């Protein structure tokens, strides 16, 4: 054991974390490292990955269920960075764009177009389902409920479907290919949201309102069927088998 042996310290500790004085880079040398940030990021995540790997190997668990990054600092720093970008964009636009002050609201005048905000168009479209409100023969061709109540109940049906779906499918799939049926159900639902939104503004569309009404229910079915066929086709092949092996780690069901 010589004095130059780097593995041995007089206090019994291992190789020091603090570099010897003659190896500490000067500020000039630090500034000259132009690849600092990307290198630092790479080393940071590589070290985190290594620590994770070591923990797995030391652990008494055979395999951990969840693969992920800790919320502090990884997720928090990333979310702060993303949030800062959006806050900066908002501040920039609000500081530099000319402010718009619209005409004051006139309570004595009905606006030409009455519509809710765009994200509620789908619900507004559901209120226009009068043409499919059934006229029952046993009631002598009368409707069992008014078109307005029918539209409101349609909203309840949509909310009920959204509430029930988590109980039918727990969401164990990482990617749409793994569960083509439920993926296509999702595609059909999103398409239905768009088509009912279009139905809400059908008087502004350059399409015949009857065609719009039919498309409202046909397009979701078509989109769901097409996505089901595409996803079923994607289940076969080399890449799918490879991914199936690679993504063995998945959240608990």
């Amino acid at each position: 054991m010589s004095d130059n042996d780097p593995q041995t310290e007089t206090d019994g500790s291992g190789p020091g974390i603090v570099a010897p004085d003659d190896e500490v880079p000067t500020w000039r040398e630090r500034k000259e490292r132009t690849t600092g940030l990307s290198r630092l990021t790479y080393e940071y995540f590589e070290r985190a990955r290594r620590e994770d790997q070591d923990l797995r190997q030391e652990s008494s668990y055979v395999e951990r269920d969840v693969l992920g990054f800790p919320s502090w600092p990884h997720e928090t720093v990333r979310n702060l960075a993303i949030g800062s970008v959006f806050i900066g964009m908002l501040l920039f636009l609000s500081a530099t764009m000319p402010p718009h002050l619209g005409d004051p609201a006139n309570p004595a005048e009905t606006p030409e177009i009455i519509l809710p905000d765009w994200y509620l168009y789908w619900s507004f479209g559901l209120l226009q389902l009068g043409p499919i409100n059934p006229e029952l023969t046993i009631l002598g061709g009368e409707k069992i409920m008014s078109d307005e109540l029918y539209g409101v109940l349609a909203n309840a049906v949509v909310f009920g479907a959204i509430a029930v779906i988590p109980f039918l499918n727990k969401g164990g799939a990482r990617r749409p290919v793994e569960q083509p049926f439920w993926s296509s159900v999702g595609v059909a639902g999103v398409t239905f949201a768009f088509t009912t939104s279009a139905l809400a503004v059908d008087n502004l569309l350059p399409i015949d309102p009857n065609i719009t009404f039919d498309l409202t229910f046909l397009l979701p079915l078509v989109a769901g069927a097409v996505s089901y066929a595409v996803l079923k086709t994607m289940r076969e092949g080399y890449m799918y088998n490879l991914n199936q092996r690679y993504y063995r780690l998945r959240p608990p069901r």
Partner: protein
Amino acid sequence: MADEFVKGFAILTVGLLVWMMFASWFNTPSFYEAQLIGPGPEDPTTYEAIALIVKDAMLAFAIFGALTFWVIIPASRRAREYYATN
């Protein structure tokens, strides 16, 4: 690859933000008509003319800058790799 993406994305974002700022001042005659792409001022003063030039320059910078980092540089790298190996 990821670095090139975020460079192009930063150029696109900054360029479009600055373009949007000038377009909202000079090409938005009213809230109820065409916004950001409306007709420019009839008789621009010197400062307005400068601002309009900067606005067009930022739009071109956003589009061509993003295209450069997303398409041209990766394509040229692929081409260089291809011709280096063959």
